[in-house]
């Protein structure tokens, strides 16, 4: 593990098998994160971004690969292979915030209990009930929940408030890494802005590292330091946000960026038409997974899978990454 990384994902694979169908949901994904940074993972539905997040949190057991993680004590561990006893200690350091604030909270638990549950699971016998309650109050204040309402049930809260409850639940055990899986996608724009600002404030205050999974490129561009673009289970590009948005190096990134509706009627972007639809992940095409829809495709692309390689400080999986000049957003204004 490199010294200034908190997490290194190496050659992560996840395959789902049902009956005779084998679906490669995540194929050979590698990247690394510095502490205190935000990594955005973008891609269309079905590209494996959620599966990737869950594999890192070990909510799914990855098929193969490594997730090296530097624990709070400074030890380097492969998070995927940690034994049960030790897992108990460090699992709380990687937490998740989920998409749907309506279905991710148990309707039969009070908000206090919901936020307290991770403490009960991790500090039973170590922390008294009083201490736990104090901790819940503290975190509820931090995320902007009115503490007088903690005895209520989730249905009494609005969507934005519920998402704050979900965030409080993730943060109450002082994690180091928080995986936000479409954490703001279900919210209205004005509330979305509130929650994004909150996440940024909390990051600074608690020195958190975020893995921010979203299909909304505007939000990802705003919040992330680095962005990974996924297509059909593979990471096709990974690099610094502004550089990647200004000059994509993978044709899929270029097409994705050109499809984003910009909230300014004066900006008119010519959309790059992709041929066909996303292929079935149970039966991916040969060579580069994107070659059937790519307008820069050559024979090589049909035959060989392009490796994820470093080009000018950017990880790209494209045979022609060096020669192509792709169009991104103009930041000059």
């Amino acid at each position, binding site marked *: 593990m490199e010294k200034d990384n908190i997490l290194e994902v190496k050659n992560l694979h996840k395959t789902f098998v049902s009956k005779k169908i084998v679906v490669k949901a995540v194929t050979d994904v590698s990247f690394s994160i510095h502490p205190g940074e935000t990594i955005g993972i973008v891609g269309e539905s079905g590209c494996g971004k959620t599966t990737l997040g869950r594999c890192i949190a070990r909510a799914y057991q990855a098929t193969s690969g490594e997730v090296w993680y530097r624990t709070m004590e400074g030890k380097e561990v492969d998070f995927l292979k940690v034994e049960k006893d030790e897992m108990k200690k460090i699992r709380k350091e990687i937490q998740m915030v989920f998409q749907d604030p309506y279905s991710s909270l148990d309707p039969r638990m009070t908000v206090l209990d919901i936020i307290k549950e991770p403490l009960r699971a991790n500090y039973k016998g170590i922390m008294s009930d009083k201490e736990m309650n104090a901790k819940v109050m503290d975190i509820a204040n931090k995320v902007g929940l009115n503490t007088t309402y903690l005895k209520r049930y989730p249905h009494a809260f609005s969507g934005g408030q519920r998402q704050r409850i979900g965030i409080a639940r993730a943060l109450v055990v002082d994690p180091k890494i928080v995986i936000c899986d479409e954490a703001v996608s279900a919210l209205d724009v*004005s509330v979305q*802005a509130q929650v994004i600002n909150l996440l940024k404030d909390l990051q600074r205050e608690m020195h958190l590292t975020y893995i921010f999974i979203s299909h909304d490129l505007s939000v990802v561009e705003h919040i992330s330091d680095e962005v990974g673009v996924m297509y059909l289970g593979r990471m096709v590009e990974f690099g610094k946000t502004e550089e990647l948005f200004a000059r994509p190096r993978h044709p899929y990134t270029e*097409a*994705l960026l050109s499809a984003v509706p910009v909230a300014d009627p004066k*900006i008119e972007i010519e959309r790059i038409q992709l041929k066909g639809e996303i292929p079935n992940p149970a039966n991916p095409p040969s060579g580069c997974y994107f070659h059937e829809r790519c307008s820069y495709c050559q024979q090589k692309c049909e035959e060989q899978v392009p490796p994820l390689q470093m080009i000018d400080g950017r990880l790209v999986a494209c045979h022609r990454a060096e020669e192509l000049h792709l169009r991104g957003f103009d930041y000059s204004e």
Partner: protein
Amino acid sequence: MDDNMILHVKDLNISIPLHEGLLTPVRGVNFDMKKGETVGLVGESGCGKSLTCRAILAINEKKCKTSGNILYNSDEKGEIDLLTMDPRGKDIRAIRGKEISMIFQEPMVAFSPLYTIGNQITEATLLHITKDKKKAKEISLDVMKKVGIANAEKRYNQYPHEFSGGMLQRAMISMALVCNPKILIADEPTTALDVTIQAQILELMKEMQKDFNMGILFITHDLGVVAKMCDRVNVMYLGKIVESGTTEKIYEDPEHPYTRGLMGSVHKIGQKKTERLFSIEGTVPLAMNLPRACGFYERCDARIEGLCDRAEPELVEVAPEHSVACFACPHPACKAQRAAAEEMIRREDGR
């Protein structure tokens, strides 16, 4: 109504009596639509935008009490008020789906899983155009091809679960367009779709609009989509239109604090990063037992105490094709409204 107008919604009110009290989700909405233009209705969830567009087709639930006028300029019958029609009567059913049709937010939910796509598209054709089944099928296949469904003959006999989300939305659009409607109501048609698919569908809608010369009423909360699609925009908050104008005007120079807040809370991709997004504090209040006050008062950063919480501003024109409902707006027309409201409050206090 002007000849080039197609729709004019006048003082539309919708209320729903509940156990807890009277819910008033739509409170005096006015807007109009010219032939062949795209009008946006923008606002957050709960602002009444969906109820408004459903009222046009009279497909709101029975418990919704609706008042006002919805004037529609029909080619055959001239100007008619859709609200006076019996929601289950013959007259509205001749318009619904034929002259005014609608596409819905979630294509997965809007189709019946029990019938083939072709069957569901042809239903409209059989109802409105021809009784001949063979001909109806031909017409349906034509439209399916037009909206870019490849292999239409095969797709015709497939069920909704065999379609992807984007393809289903195309199928729904073909269902809406099969009778050549004059107005298409699109209620968040792309919210459930991926960006690349969304871009395809939006382009398709624009193309179809040109081909059929229809007006589109576009309901959405996505300001990026509005910028791309709409000629004019109406911003709704708590059942009222608070600002209305051409898209350029609204984006360049928003006057209402709510519009400004909405614009600020969206990160514009491809621009220099701002540290924080502007956020409107608080949440939309419940539209029940509303006091006589500006609906946005609690969350507004430009509110005038003693005025905005005692009187409600109306939509006034501040420039051609640009109206705002706000006392704090510096425009003369708004100032006049403000003076009148202050005068009224003074008189009330004096009494």
